[in-house]
């Protein structure tokens, strides 16, 4: 069993958008999570795979990784 989350940085620190068990989650639920991921990416979010210290940016949703969504960044 592997529990995975999709989190997002926000005013409250971070917020969990979805949490699932990779072995038991249904395709329908996965599709919903992936749709939310894609929607955030279209808004300009960056996504990172933070599973076990990997800490790399990703472009596509992966059900097997811990995902952290980063709101759009800009120069200050």
């Amino acid at each position, binding site marked *: 069993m592997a529990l995975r989350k999709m*989190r997002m*940085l*926000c*005013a*409250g*620190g*971070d917020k969990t958008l979805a949490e699932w068990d990779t072995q038991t989650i249904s395709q329908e639920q996965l599709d919903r999570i992936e749709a939310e991921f894609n929607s955030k990416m279209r808004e*300009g979010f*960056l996504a*990172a795979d*933070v599973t076990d*210290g990997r*800490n*790399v*940016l990703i472009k596509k949703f992966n059900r097997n990784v811990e995902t*952290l969504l*980063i*709101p*759009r*960044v*800009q*120069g*200050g």
Partner: protein
Amino acid sequence: MQRSRLSTASSSGQAEFIDRTSASFKARELLCEILPAAAREEFLAHDAFHFKGERAIYRICRSSQTEIWLNGRLTAHACMQLTIPAPSYDRMIAEYLILNSDENLYWNKANILRAKGPVLGLSELLLIAFNLVLLVKLVFDCLI
């Protein structure tokens, strides 16, 4: 409100009361979860950590702009912000993840400001020129 004492909260080593439900606390916890061990230790001690990239070494700080070090010299400051209001620790997370993954993207997104170094400005150059003129005049007067 849940409050507890956290002894490693400040670089001064003094214990502080931390609101464990606060956005800042949550963001700090997440940053500690993400950082590699060495960077996490440095961050807990100094509220800042270094990241060694291919182009430079970066010192990512909570309360000031990121420092860019090249060949042992502070050469620039980088300013990057999230487009939402969020704790500074979240900005540090974003900077670290972007640098760790795509350093060029960081340079494209951040505002990079060259650090003020020992380079002479116009006023200093004018003063040096003026002093040289005085010196030449003094030597010339002595010779005549």
